[in-house]
């Protein structure tokens, strides 16, 4: 392969295509030389894509340059890249079979899949997505390697990627921020629906390069076809019922086109009751003497939910791409379990626990476009714009307690240049604005607006078998809050005699200090990755990155009771008063607010081809100024209606522990491994393991760190019947932070059987699935409600879905 000088290639790029017009024609075959039909062949960097015919043949005309790179992918074969000199006629391109499931990631402007990237990615799609989908995103993804759920009584859950969640894991919908309130509270539902999604992608490790501050721990991208990108008519539908909570699900989507106009619609509805559990809901620790009678066993109260939504989209399908717009609406009403405000357990009343529920509504308008422009300086322009209007209210005893609102706009443009000296890449411009507001009893954060403007440069180039990816990004983040409140905190420690009829009502402090706060951050990120096909069927990925993250408004400005975390949260803008005898326990922090800096090293080893596939990832992430909530040992009132709260012998029922956001250096390291063995054609055996250690640099562990997990799955895939049996072992977690308790290990046994019917009009699948078949009582260490809501007990699901 001849090397061009930079100058020559610049000339090449700036001249019109015809001068260098070249063609390639060939056949895609398997190891035995048999043709592979319906394989996608893409000219890398030139937006040309064709499918092979029945004889495995394909042809490209009028390619640029005199050498090119082809990417070929086909079902159950490992994806492969071929570099060749042009023109090339009658070439054979051999693919090797793989046991691994390989699906392209749409979140990245570069081609990436679970076997082809420097950073680990995984994709949940197709039947596996349909079988694993749950009403909440974290629970949907909990079986993915490296991903755990922060299980919030099944009514809400967020994916935890390598021990990180909240403001460090970005949830996107078609590549744009989901725009909900899920990043500030575990009880806030993620506003993305899995049943109508076409795939869900997980990027593990820092992805700030593409997504900015919020993606320092990873990205979860929920993809659907709401904006059609091709002229096809297709559709799918699904009906399902689960026994453990009587969940009923109906969903469907359809896509078609009229001339050059693509049309899409989807709709879903879910409804479930409180879920059943094998034992008692609440764990009582010795230091508590509550005589709770509620939810003795059987069910976890207040976990019913109902949700519905739809989206409509249309696009204009061009020769060189598409332009489309969509509107989506999502409504969800769900109970918030474990929300017993102090528990005035009247013995004669059944409903000792208050019924609190959230009522969520989101409207979302999206504009997506991908255009191949083939201009001398601009190969391709990808545009994504979204406007999201989100609101959820928390209703207690029929009255609105707290309202959360998030209005956000986001725009991202990727300008990809033509290949220059074999370098592919481009510039990404991103703007994001969010107005966040919380009003009411649990409005623990003041209204704030966050604005982000970023520019990033990403380039990749093959050096023989090594693909090098480089990226840099600079960002401006401004957080403005005009009314940050520092209320007098009647906090006290519980060390003193609790029965001294103490005047813990500080009537001396009768004002709230108010601040106008303006934060400005300029985080930047650098990353370098290499991906080496060191021998046929194997590759090695290395990625190093330095990412900065601006702390979120909630981490900086909070001050108030947050029932979702059962704590009184105080942001990093404040600090503990050094004088322990002072009237005010919390004062303004006069130390500079620093950015979080993650230095991440990621190693990936993959064996792709053959009956045995293996993916091993190891990571070491040193995060400086990691913002986390430190227990102050103080207690403050939860701000709720406690008629009896201030009586003697204060029973602490109306009080919450005070947690303060502080920045400390932490180290996270761990591994993920996945082994897939195609034993014989219909039988596949998968073993997965992941482990994470999250510790403070000065000693001590971070809270709610996922335990070591090992799972094995035996799958049978016949023509008509497919089935799987999975056993997952969650080991005990005893690496715990202060005031956290250890969690016992548990086993979950899941199984499913599907029966496939191929009809003239549509393919239908009838299925039965069973989860937690041994009815194990399982407590999730990563859950804020660990002691209140165990995992659901045995559940049988029955469903039918169709596809046309």
């Amino acid at each position, binding site marked *: 392969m001849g090397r061009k000088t930079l100058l020559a290639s610049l000339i090449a790029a700036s001249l019109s295509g015809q001068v260098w017009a070249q063609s390639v024609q060939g056949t895609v075959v398997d190891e035995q030389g048999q043709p592979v039909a319906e394989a996608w062949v893409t000219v890398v960097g030139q937006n040309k894509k064709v499918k092979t015919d029945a004889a495995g043949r394909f042809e490209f005309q009028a390619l640029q340059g005199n050498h090119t790179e082809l990417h070929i992918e086909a079902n159950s074969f490992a994806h492969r890249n071929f570099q060749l000199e042009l023109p090339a006629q009658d070439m054979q391109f051999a693919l090797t079979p793989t046991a691994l499931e390989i699906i392209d990631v749409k979140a990245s402007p570069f081609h990436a899949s679970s076997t082809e990237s420097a950073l680990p990615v995984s994709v949940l799609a197709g039947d596996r997505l349909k079988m694993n989908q749950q009403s909440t995103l974290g629970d949907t993804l909990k079986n993915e390697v490296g991903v755990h759920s922060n299980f919030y009584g099944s009514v809400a859950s967020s994916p935890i990627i390598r021990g990180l969640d909240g403001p460090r894991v970005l949830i996107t919908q078609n590549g744009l921020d989901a725009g909900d309130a899920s990043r500030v509270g575990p009880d806030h539902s993620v506003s993305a629906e899995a049943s109508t999604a076409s795939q869900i992608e997980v990027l593990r490790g820092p992805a700030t390069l593409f997504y900015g501050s919020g993606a320092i721990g990873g990205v979860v991208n929920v993809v659907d076809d709401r904006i059609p990108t091709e002229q096809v008519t297709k559709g799918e539908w699904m009906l399902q019922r689960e026994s453990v909570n009587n969940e009923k699900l109906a969903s469907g989507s359809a896509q078609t086109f009229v001339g050059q106009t693509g049309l899409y619609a989807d709709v879903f509805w879910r409804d479930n009751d409180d879920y059943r559990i094998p034992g008692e809901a609440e764990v009582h620790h010795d230091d508590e003497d509550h005589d709770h009678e509620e939810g003795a066993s059987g069910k976890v109260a207040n976990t019913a939910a109902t949700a519905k939504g739809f989206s409509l989209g249309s696009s204009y399908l061009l020769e060189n791409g598409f332009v489309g717009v969509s509107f989506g609406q999502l409504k969800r009403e769900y109970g918030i379990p474990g929300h017993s405000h102090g528990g005035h357990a009247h013995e004669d009343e059944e409903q000792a626990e208050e019924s609190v529920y959230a009522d969520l509504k989101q409207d979302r308008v999206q504009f997506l476009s991908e255009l191949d422009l083939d201009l001398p300086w601009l190969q391709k322009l990808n545009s994504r714009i979204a406007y999201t209007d989100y609101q959820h209210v928390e209703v207690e005893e029929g009255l609105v307690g707290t309202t959360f609102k998030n209005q956000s706009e986001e725009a991202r443009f990727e300008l990809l240049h033509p290949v220059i000296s074999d370098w592919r890449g481009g510039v990404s411009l991103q703007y994001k604005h969010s107005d966040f507001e919380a009003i009411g009893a649990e409005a623990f954060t003041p209204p704030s607006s966050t604005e982000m403007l970023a520019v990033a440069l990403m380039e990749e180039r093959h050096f023989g078998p090594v693909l090098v990816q480089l990226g840099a990004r600079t960002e401006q983040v401004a957080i403005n809050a005009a009314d940050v409140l520092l209320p007098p905190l009647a906090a006290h420690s519980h060390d003193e005699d609790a029965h001294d009829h103490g005047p813990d009502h500080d009537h001396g402090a009768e*004002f709230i200090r108010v*601040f*106008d*706060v303006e934060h400005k951050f*300029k985080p930047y990120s650098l990353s370098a990755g290499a991906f080496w096909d060191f021998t046929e069927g194997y590759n090695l990925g290395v990625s190093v990155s330095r990412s900065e993250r*601006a702390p979120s408004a909630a981490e900086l400005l909070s001050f108030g009771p947050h029932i979702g975390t059962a704590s009184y949260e105080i942001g990093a*803008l404040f600090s503990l008063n050094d004088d322990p005898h002072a009237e005010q326990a919390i004062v303004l922090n006069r130390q500079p607010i620093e*950015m979080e800096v993650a230095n991440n090293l990621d190693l990936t080893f993959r064996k792709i081809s053959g009956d045995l596939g293996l993916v091993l990832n190891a990571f070491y992430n040193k995060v400086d100024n990691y913002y986390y909530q430190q227990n102050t040992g103080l207690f403050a009132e939860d701000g709720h209606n406690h008629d009896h709260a201030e009586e003697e012998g204060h029973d602490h029922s109306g009080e919450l522990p005070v947690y303060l956001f502080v920045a400390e250096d932490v180290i996270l390291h761990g591994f993920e491994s996945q082994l897939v063995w195609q034993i014989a054609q219909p039988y596949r055996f998968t073993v997965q393991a992941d482990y994470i250690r999250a510790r403070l640099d000065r000693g001590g562990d971070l809270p709610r760190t996922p335990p070591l997990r090992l799972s094995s799955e035996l799958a049978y895939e016949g023509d008509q019947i497919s089935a799987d049996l999975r056993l997952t072992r969650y080991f005990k977690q005893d690496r715990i932070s202060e005031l956290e308790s250890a969690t016992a290990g548990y086993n979950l046994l899941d199984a499913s059987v599907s029966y496939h019917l191929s009809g003239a009009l549509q393919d239908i699948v009838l299925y039965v699935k069973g989860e937690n078949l041994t009815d194990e009582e399982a407590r999730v260490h990563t859950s804020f409600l660990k002691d209140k809501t165990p995992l659901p007990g045995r559940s049988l699901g029955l469903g039918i879905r169709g596809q046309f």
Partner: protein
Amino acid sequence: MLKSKVNVLALLISASLLAACGDSTTNIVEKDPIPVEDDHDHETGAGRLVISDKDSTMLRVYNLEDGDLLGQFSSLSNASALYASASQRFAMVVQRESDKVEFIDGGLYQEDHGDHLHPYEEEPRLMSLQLSESRPTHVTTTDEQIAIFFDGNVATSSVAKVAVLNDDQINTGSNDYPVLTYSTHMHGAAQARGEMLVSTIRDAATASTLPDQVGVYHVHGDHFHLEQEFALRCPGLHGSAQNKDYVSFGCTDGVMLLKQDGETFTASKVAHTADFTGTMRIGTLEGVEDAPHFIGFAGATVFSVNPVAGSLNKVDWQGATGANIIGYGFADHGEKFVLLDSTGALSILNYNAAAATGAAFALANKVQITTADLTTMPTGSQLQLAISAADDKVYVADPLSKTVSTIDLEEAKVIEKQELGFTPHKMVWVGIPAGHDDH
């Protein structure tokens, strides 16, 4: 006090802080602070006690949060009774023998700020308003109004009067409250019902000072007009109470009921049942707006009165032989009824408002406040009961031990005892009642 603090602070504001570290800058400008708007209208504290001194005219106000003495005031003469005003902000110091009523502001109150009730916590003070009429005796209150019955005095040819006033008038020291003036004296009873007043009528020709008839009066500026007079008699009328729909009076032959329907009242009587023997009669009645039942005392025998069913049912409170009821009232937001008797036992009854038949009041617990020999109590002294409207506590003052005990009704025990250093005589709770709907 609150205001001055904020003003001092206002001088200290607007300090600007700029902190920077590398690529981060934080700019903080302090703005005017805002006074704490505690919108939790039920987090209003334990309240205060006003206690009169047996041996002097001194009235002391104690903070129940910490037991501190907040203020002491001298009334014109010894208090014959202490009552809490309509909102329970003020203590009414009734001095029957010297024809006076004075008022002490307990200092705890709340103001309607539109979207919330704003609580205030101030020093107690003696109010300027004084009522000087003959023999103030029975005082009844609703959430908004106070009716003070002045019995009059045959010896001085003073006629009976009823003054109807509210807390605003006490606060502003206003004398423009309406007064019903009778043509004769009587040991009567009155119940204020907004613009209406249900009050007793005595035939001046009879020898008894007790009335035997009831009339409905309507306010006209500073006086009342009789609008309705009931033919139904209530011989030996003593004791009255009201709830949302009814006003009740105790008669020697039963309980007279007036049902209000708009501006019209209909009279009826619940006759004595077989439980009444000899001269037994109900002479004391108690009721609150939200409780459909009244409770009546015939000596130490307690009856629940169901005005809708027209029934009288004996309440089995298991009083000790010879025990007299010396204190009573609805407690714990109307969920309980407490009875203090002369043996020093506090009986806690659960109140079941929904009971159409059967026991509306059921004995739940008894708390022995003191084991001392109460027969050695000085003449004119007895245990005094005060009931918190803020929570489920009641207080009992003991003249023998010179203490006040705090009783938690939920736990049914004395949870604290405070030394007073003087002999308590009368006692009343003042403060901010907890809302009715937040329980």
